């Protein structure tokens, strides 16, 4: 219980801090809009190649942009931990009975909630651009959950790296290093049928692609709920693993004090 309540208080603190940064709110709204509108226009005619399941590229793209945005957000989530470490906020809490796990978990939960809010914004923009989601409200929920899970899974990794390196520069390097490769090794922007064979195989092991597949499955007709379910389950399992890893690195940070 203490873990849950402490985590919640920490999430509230971080959320409140974000809301006090107007520039951040603007970025949070505008950035996904840019992805959707720019990519949607740039690759508009690519559906002619076939294999997209729809002639509307923006419909194909919208659920994947939710996942991509959640993924990018997650790779930066460790920055907030580094900031708290540098300003000794973490140490102050360590000298109180605050739950140790909550100090890490709250970062991941905050990151996932942010991803969910951005998912809602992206979906609203998508509707405005004429996208329709075949499975309706339930589909929207699946898309948001897929975004949150991809975000949590990678936020765990980001937190662990933050706790191991405790340096912003390293964080930035890692985020850049894994960001684009994982994006291009997925079906985010292109249909599987149009990818080279080896990339199709590689994508199967890419958690970003798991999220994209679950999210896209509910948009187009002929939804396979077992595809949705399995991919969400994979993501859930991965989240458990990375969160556990982040918690372990937090213990090793404590020992280093």
């Amino acid at each position: 219980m203490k873990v849950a309540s402490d985590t919640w208080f920490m999430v509230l603190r971080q959320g409140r801090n974000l809301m006090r940064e107007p520039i951040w709110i603007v970025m949070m709204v505008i950035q996904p809009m840019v992805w959707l509108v720019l990519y949607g226009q740039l690759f508009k005619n690519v559906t002619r190649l076939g294999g997209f399941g729809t002639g509307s590229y923006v419909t194909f793209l919208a659920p994947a942009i939710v996942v991509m945005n959640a993924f990018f957000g997650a790779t930066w989530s460790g920055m907030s931990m580094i900031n708290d470490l540098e300003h000794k906020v973490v140490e102050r809490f360590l000298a109180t009975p605050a739950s140790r796990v909550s100090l890490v978990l709250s970062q991941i939960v905050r990151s996932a909630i942010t991803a969910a809010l951005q998912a809602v914004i992206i979906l609203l923009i998508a509707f405005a651009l004429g996208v329709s989601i075949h499975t309706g409200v339930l589909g929207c929920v699946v898309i948001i959950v897929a975004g949150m899970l991809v975000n949590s899974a990678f936020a765990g990794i980001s937190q662990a790296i933050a706790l191991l390196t405790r340096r912003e520069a390293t964080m930035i390097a890692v985020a850049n290093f894994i960001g684009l490769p994982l994006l291009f090794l997925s079906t985010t922007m292109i249909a599987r049928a149009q990818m080279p064979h080896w990339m199709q195989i590689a994508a199967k092991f890419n958690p970003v692609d798991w999220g994209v597949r679950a999210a896209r499955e509910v948009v187009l007709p002929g939804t396979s709920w077992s595809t949705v379910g399995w991919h969400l389950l994979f993501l859930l399992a991965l989240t458990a693993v990375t969160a556990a890893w982040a918690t372990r690195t937090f213990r090793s940070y404590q020992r280093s004090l």
Partner: protein
Amino acid sequence: MEAIVVDDLRKRYGEVQALDGVTFAVREGEVFGLLGPNGAGKSTTVRVLVTLTRADSGSASVQGHDVRREQNAVRKAIGYVPQDSGVDGFGTGRENVLLQGRVQGMGGRDLKGRADELLELVGIADAADRVVRTYSGGMRRRLDIALGLVHRPRVLFLDEPTTGLDPEARVAMWEEVGRLAQAEALTILLTTHYLEEADQLADRLAIVSQGKVVVEGTPAELKAGLQGDAVHVELANGAVSAAQGVLASVGARPEQVLDGRTVVARVENGGRALPGIISALDGAGIGVESVSVSRPSLDDVYLHYTGRDFDTEDRAA
């Protein structure tokens, strides 16, 4: 009754023996100072006591709770005001206090009332709803103390409470700490590398040097232990041993030599001994640049017990 008991703590960071057998005890209700230059091991000692750091060996307890085996009991019993404040700069003063109370298990009206009371008590009530980034150094320090006190701890740890404050804010903080110790019936352990601060605030103190407690007592006892005033004789030509002989012949006890040219000697009464000292040196043909007399200070105590000059050591660290 002893609020804090520290027994033979040792801690090594790589090549550095940060704690080399620290031992002392703090009685309930007193303000106890750990005085020493930077790098002496004061902060490490405090970090062990507040459960942030584990000692390699030795034991310590706070309010009867072992800092290794009963960590949560210790954390509830203490307030910790670290050297680097650790407040959340993006939150307001009040928000920081409320969150601190929540993780200490408080809530509802009790916590709200306590937050109001504390913000008033430390004198930042007017700024309570401003974001902490806009606070001055002194206001931040006051907020730090409020955070340490929110759950009504019996023991408060103040790690370098006035480092980084301007002299005016420092004096104000001294008054504050004295007042809080009374108002909240606290036992306070404070670390400082300001001799003046230890002199002003501490009922008793321990001088820490190179990971060990060198001497322990009230400021008055420590100064009295020196028996007399210090006479500093700065020599023109560095005839140190000749000067020491002359001083001894007129009843002054030569103690240390600073920078190879200043002899420090101890006399019962500096004012009365001075004319005799000057004429004896003059008679022996020893050139003197300056002579000064000082009442015993903690500087002298430090010099006496460690054989090293406090300021030199503080700057070197």
